[in-house]
C-alpha cells in the first residue's frame, strides 16, 4: 500500500515537473523571442535625429518629367491660323505622328534661411534647351509677403502659374494659345501678400521685362510690362474648396511679332496691349480624400485690348490697328474610380472689334471654338497615361479632328502640385 502511494506520488511529481519544465521552456522561448524582437528593432532603428553625413546631402531636389505624345491631326498643322488673331510663334496644334514632348528638368532647394531657389529647364525634342524658369523666392519675410525674382511664370490666370505637366488636358486652351502664345513667362520681380484672414486673400504684382508674347519686343530702360493680380479662396465644408481670381497684364509692345515668324516675315505690332483675366477653380472630394473620387471644375475668361499700329510685308497690313478680343474655356474633370479620370472642355474665342488702316482684317471676324474630351489613367502619382480627342473648329475653313495619346512620367523628387 505504502509502496503504491509512494509510486503514485513519484509519478505525479514527475509528471508535474515535466509539465512545469514544458511551461518553463515555452516561457523562456517567448522571453527570448521578445528579446530578439527588441534587438531587431534596435538594430533597424538608427539613432533618432542623426542626418547622414555626405557630400551630396545639400544637393537640390532634382526631378525630371519625361513625356511623349502621339498626335493625329486631320488638318495640316503647317497651315494653322486663328481667324482674326495675330498669333505668336508657339501657337500650333502640334506635330503629326509619334514624338517626345518637351522634357522638364527641375532643381530646387533652400539657399539660406531666407531664400529658396529653383530652376526648370526645358529640353525640346528638336535638341534645343530653354530656361523655362529660374528664380529665387523669399521664405524668411514676415507678414505674408513673398518676393520672387528671376524668370518665372506670371501669376495671372489659373493655368499660367502651373507647369504644363500639371495641366488637366494635353494641349493649352485656345485663349492661352491666342493671347499668351501658350503660356506667359517673363523676367522680373514679383511681390505677393497674403492677408491674415481665415479666407485666403492674395494680392500680387509683377514688374516685368516685357519679353513674353503678349508684351514682346520692348527692350528698354525701366519696366516693359506689369501685372496685378488677386485671388480669394476657401473651403465650403470638408469636401469642397474653391478659388477665384482676377488679373491685369499691361504691356507696351514695340515690334511684337506675329504671323509668319518662321520665314522671318512677321507682322509687327507696336502700341499698348492690356489683357484682363478672370478665373475660378472649384474642387470636390468626398471627405476631402481626393484619392478615390474627386472632381475639378475650372474656367477662365480673357479680354484683350490692342491699340497701336501693325505692319507686315506679307499680309500687307500697315498703319493703325485696334482690336477688342476675348476668349475662355470651361472644363470639368471627374475621377470616377481610383486611378481613372475623364474630362470635358469647351473653348471659345471672339473678336468684338477689329480695325486696321489698310482694311486687311475686316473680313476675318470668325469665332473659333473647340470641344475636347480626355480619359486618363494614373497608375500612381509618378506615371500617367491619357488620350484626348478635340473637335477643333478654330480654323475659318474646316473643322479639325485631333487625337492625342500621351505618357507622362515623373522621376525623382516630386512634391505636390499647386491648387
Amino acid at each position, binding site marked *: 500500500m505504502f509502496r503504491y502511494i509512494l509510486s503514485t506520488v513519484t509519478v505525479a511529481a514527475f509528471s508535474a515537473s515535466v509539465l512545469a519544465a514544458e511551461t518553463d521552456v515555452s516561457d523562456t522561448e517567448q522571453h527570448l523571442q521578445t528579446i530578439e524582437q527588441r534587438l531587431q528593432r534596435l538594430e533597424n532603428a538608427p539613432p533618432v535625429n542623426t542626418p547622414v553625413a555626405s557630400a551630396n546631402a545639400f544637393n537640390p531636389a532634382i526631378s525630371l518629367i519625361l513625356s511623349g505624345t502621339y498626335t493625329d491631326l486631320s488638318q495640316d498643322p503647317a497651315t494653322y491660323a486663328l481667324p482674326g488673331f495675330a498669333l505668336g510663334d508657339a501657337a500650333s496644334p502640334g506635330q503629326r505622328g509619334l514624338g517626345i514632348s518637351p522634357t522638364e528638368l527641375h532643381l530646387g532647394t533652400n539657399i539660406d534661411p531666407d531664400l529658396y531657389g529653383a530652376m526648370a529647364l526645358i529640353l525640346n525634342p528638336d535638341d534645343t534647351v530653354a530656361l523655362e524658369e529660374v528664380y529665387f523666392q523669399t521664405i524668411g519675410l514676415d507678414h505674408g509677403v513673398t518676393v520672387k525674382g528671376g524668370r518665372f511664370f506670371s501669376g495671372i490666370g489659373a493655368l499660367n502659374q502651373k507647369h504644363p505637366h500639371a495641366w488637366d488636358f494635353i494641349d493649352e486652351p485656345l485663349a492661352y494659345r491666342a493671347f499668351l502664345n501658350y503660356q506667359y513667362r517673363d523676367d522680373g520681380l514679383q511681390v505677393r501678400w497674403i492677408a491674415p484672414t481665415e479666407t485666403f486673400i492674395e494680392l500680387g504684382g509683377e514688374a516685368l521685362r516685357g519679353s513674353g508674347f503678349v508684351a514682346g519686343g520692348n527692350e528698354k530702360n525701366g519696366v516693359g510690362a506689369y501685372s496685378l493680380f488677386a485671388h480669394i479662396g476657401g473651403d465650403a465644408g470638408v469636401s469642397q474648396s474653391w478659388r477665384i481670381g482676377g488679373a491685369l497684364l499691361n504691356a507696351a509692345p514695340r515690334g511684337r511679332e506675329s504671323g509668319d515668324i518662321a520665314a522671318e516675315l512677321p507682322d509687327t505690332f507696336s502700341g499698348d496691349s492690356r489683357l484682363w483675366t478672370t478665373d475660378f477653380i472649384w474642387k470636390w472630394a468626398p471627405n*476631402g*480624400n481626393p484619392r478615390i473620387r474627386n472632381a475639378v471644375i475650372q474656367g477662365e475668361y480673357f479680354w484683350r485690348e490692342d491699340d497701336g499700329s501693325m505692319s507686315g510685308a506679307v499680309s500687307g497690313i500697315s498703319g493703325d490697328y485696334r482690336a477688342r478680343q476675348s476668349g475662355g474655356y470651361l472644363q470639368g474633370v471627374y475621377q470616377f474610380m481610383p486611378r481613372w479620370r475623364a474630362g470635358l472642355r469647351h473653348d471659345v474665342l471672339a473678336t468684338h472689334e477689329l480695325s486696321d488702316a489698310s482694311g486687311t482684317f475686316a473680313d476675318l471676324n470668325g469665332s473659333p471654338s473647340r470641344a475636347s474630351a480626355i480619359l486618363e489613367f494614373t497608375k500612381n502619382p509618378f506615371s500617367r497615361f491619357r488620350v484626348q480627342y478635340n473637335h477643333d473648329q478654330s480654323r475659318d475653313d474646316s473643322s479639325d479632328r485631333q487625337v492625342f495619346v500621351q505618357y507622362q512620367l515623373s522621376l525623382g523628387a516630386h512634391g505636390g502640385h499647386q*491648387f
Partner: protein
Amino acid sequence: MKKIISLCVLLMLGQPVHAALKVMACEPEWGALAREIGGENVVVYIATTGLQDPHAIEARPSLIAQVRRAEMLVCTGADLESGWLPLLLRQAGNPRVQPGTLGYFEAASFVTRMEIPTRLDRSDGDIHAAGNPHIQTDPRNIARVATALAQRLAEIDPVNAGFYQARYRDFAARWAAAIVRWEQQAAPLRGVVVVAHHSYFVYLDNWLGLKTVAYLEPKPGVQPTSNHLAEIVAQLQRQPAKMILRAPYNGARPSEWLSERAKIPAVMLPGTVGGSNQANDLFGLFDDTVQRLLAALK
C-alpha cells in the same frame, strides 16, 4: 485716406500680441495633444480630419491662409506631409514656422521610427525614407511626443511655461494609467495574426503584439489589385488570420471582398482622433481601437 492707410497697417501687423498661441496641427492626433497640453493658451487649427488620408491632401487656399497665420506647426514629419506642406510653407510668407525654426515641430523626430528602408527605390512603392510615419497608433509614442511638445510650447511661449508643464504632468499621469488599462484589456490580442490594408498599424502591432502577415496594397501606397487579393486568399488558407484592419480613409471594398472570401471580419480602426464617433479625443481613440480589436476577436 489716412483711415485706409492705418487700417492697412493694422491688417499687415496682424494679431494683437498677448492672444493665445496660434497652432496649426497637420493631423488630428497632434491637434488633440496640443489642446491637452496648451489648454486655453493655444488656439488649434487642424488641417486634416480623421477621415482624410494625410498622404494625399490638396494644398488648398484655406490651408495657405492658416499657415500664414500660424505661430507654430505641429506635424508628423517623416515625409508624411511631403506632398502638400512644403507648398504651403513656401507660399505662406511666414518665417516663424519654417523647418528648422522653433515654430516647426515634427513629432516623428522624437520617437524611434520603424520600417526605415534600407533601399530607396520607387519600384518599392510610395515608401518614406525616414521610416513609417504612422507613429500615433502606439500610445507610448504619444507620450514621448507629449514630453517634447510641452518643452517646445514652453520655449515658444515662455510666459506660460509653468502652465504648460503643469498641464503636461497632469496629462502624462492620466495617459500612463490609461496605457496600463489598455494593455490589460488588450492582453488576448498578443500574437493574433492579422491582415492590413496599408502599413498603417505597424506601431500598433508592435505595441499590442499583433502580427501582420499580409497587406492588401501590393506595395505601400499602391491600390490593391484583384491579383494581389487572390494571392492573399491563398496565403490565408495556409496561414489563417483573425481579421483585416484598415484606416477610415482606406476604401472599404478590398477588405470587405477579402472578408467574404476568407470568412474573417473586416475591422475599421479609427487610426486617429475623429476616425470614428467614439474616438473623439486621444483617450477615446485608444479605448475604441482596443474595443474594436477585441470585438473582432470574439
